[in-house]
């Protein structure tokens, strides 16, 4: 194998081109004055939703994508309460993956509620770093995904986003934007191609932004 390696590297060195096209550098886009509106528009364009609520009691305040409230009592009590995978302490997990076992049997999961790091205003994506392999699986196997971001959670563009990401130590991380989707059949958009059918970004925002209301 080192044979192929050396041969390829030698070829590349021997045929090195010179284009002389210098980088000029780009000014990073600045935060738009209507950041919240732009973010909402981008998330909705990607088929997702944005909910902005104060931290206190947010679990009761937001609209959940499942029929029964995810915190409602019920599993094992005859009700079809949703199975939940949650990494937030205020919402208990119940159902597949809840005890962190190596979850690959594909037992149905209704809802994954995960912490996101921040959202990118220019494209509506949320940066997310799963802390455990089953967290990433939950984000993919759940029917509905809720990403919770908090506080100073917006960056203007991908340029600022990458400034906040330490790629050199990151084993896995992803930008998530809207639910899984496809348009491979006659360009008709279908949400939920392989992964979640819905994605809701929940922004817990306590101190109101200057000049704006605190709730959505």
């Amino acid at each position, binding site marked *: *194998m080192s044979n*192929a390696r050396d041969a*390829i*590297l030698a*070829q*590349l*060195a021997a*045929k*090195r*081109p*010179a*284009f002389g*096209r*210098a*980088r*000029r*550098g*780009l*000014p990073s*886009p600045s935060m738009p004055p209507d950041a919240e509106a732009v973010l909402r528009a981008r998330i909705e364009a*990607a088929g997702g939703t944005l909910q902005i609520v104060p931290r206190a009691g947010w679990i009761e305040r937001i609209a959940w994508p499942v029929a029964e409230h995810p915190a409602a009592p019920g599993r094992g009590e005859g009700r079809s309460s949703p199975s939940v995978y949650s990494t937030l302490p205020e919402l208990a997990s119940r159902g597949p993956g809840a005890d962190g076992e190596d979850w*690959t049997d*594909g037992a149905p999961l209704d809802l994954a509620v995960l912490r996101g790091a921040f959202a*990118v205003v*220019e*494209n*509506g*994506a949320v940066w997310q770093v799963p802390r455990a*392999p089953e967290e*990433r*699986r939950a984000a*993919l*196997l759940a029917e509905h995904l809720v990403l919770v971001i908090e506080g100073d959670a917006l960056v203007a*563009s*991908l*340029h600022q*986003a*990458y400034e906040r*990401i330490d*790629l*050199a130590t*990151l*084993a*896995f*991380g*992803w*930008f998530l*934007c809207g639910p*899984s*989707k*496809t*348009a*491979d*059949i*006659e*360009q*008709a958009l279908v949400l939920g*191609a*392989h*992964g979640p059918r819905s994605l809701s970004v929940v922004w817990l925002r306590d101190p109101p932004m200057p000049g704006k209301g605190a709730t959505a």
Partner: protein
Amino acid sequence: MGHVSRARAFVADAERTRWHDQALWFVRAKRDAAADLVPDWEALRSEAAAIKREALERLPELWIEFEAQATRAGAVVHWARDAEEHNAIVARLLRERGVTRVVKSKSMLTEECGLNPHLERQGIEVVDTDLGERIVQLRSEPPSHIVMPAIHLRRGEVGETFARTMGAPEGLDDPDALTALARHDLRARFLAAEAGITGVNFAVAETGSLVVVSNEGNVDLGTALPKLHIACVGLEKIVPAKRDLPVLLRLLARSATGQAISAYTSHFRGASAGRELHVVIVDNGRSRLLAEPDFREALACIRCGACLNTCPVYRRSGGHSYGTVIPGPIGSVLEPARDLVAHAELPHACTLCGSCAEVCPVRIPLPQQLLAWRGVLAARGLHPRRRRLALRIAAEILSRPTALRLVGGLGRALARALPESLVEQLARPWTRERALPPLPAASFQTLWKRRQATARERGLPARSDAREGDGDAG
């Protein structure tokens, strides 16, 4: 069989051709709308062009750096000179681990290498998981577009395919229902898979990271579930550093589909506990192309597909008419480099309208390259005999004013004297889908002289920018 004859099969279905043309033009329009929302779009393109060219100038150093970083993080790096070595490495990795079920996400590189048939011959089941790729796999067809693999098919055909292969009810053609069926079928295959194979959008030398994007989430299901991830990456996919990613990612999805970003943009570095990441770096002709000054900039391509969507020839002839792994303008530049004789028609599957160069996010001079290929074809005597003859005659006539006047006059006289159907017959294949314009009564020179004379009589200055009715050809 060349591009024209294969295109004939596609355009025989006029309704399909019209739909295909409009669907792709709609994607082009979405690309424009997305680009318009980015204030520094043109500067962004220039920056991306510079980044990719810098990477091509520094390939050996960057790949050595990538290898060191990725290895440090626990990945295993392999090198393959050609498709055969690539396929052998992947097959060995799978065999050594007793893997028989593999899920694969979209990768033009593995298409190029013919990986699927190679693995299938060894009893390994490979399931393409991108919906469009799955559809064409079930039909035993190649993809017809690098981003939208099944764009040549109508919903009814997908329904028929699913009825035949997945037990879908006859006549089902609703995209939601068909997608739901495929989702159900593929979910089970994801869960049963023992390995996931992916392509790579960007390999980052500085950190040894791989970036892979998808909309469906199939890349992620295929790497989050199985314990073995094999990433196959062409030599041209390297970028120097993290700071290059935002530039390229801001362009990629917008250019491809008009989305601001894809649904999933995943960053992999090394292998986590109990899991394996293998990276197979593939040359397969890329280093040879690097030595071609006229064509090597094509290695900057980020496979967004924008040049296909905007191309008037691609839109109307369909991806399969190219007979190559990569169709459209970029394919017509890349594929002749592999086999000029086999793909001699492709540089002519182009009107030189320049639209591809207008949209290419990394500013590849595709029209110039296609023109350069035509020059190579001419120099090597690879044009078909009829074209050679026609070009020689044209050159003789065009270089002699008297001859031009004579032939022009003769042509106009004949066109008037002969029956219309015969004239059309003579002008084939140009008249296959269109009528000849009425030929002017006199040559351009005559019209021009007449015009100047009239102007003088009226005492007007002889203006050169005014238009005269039918003073068209000479």
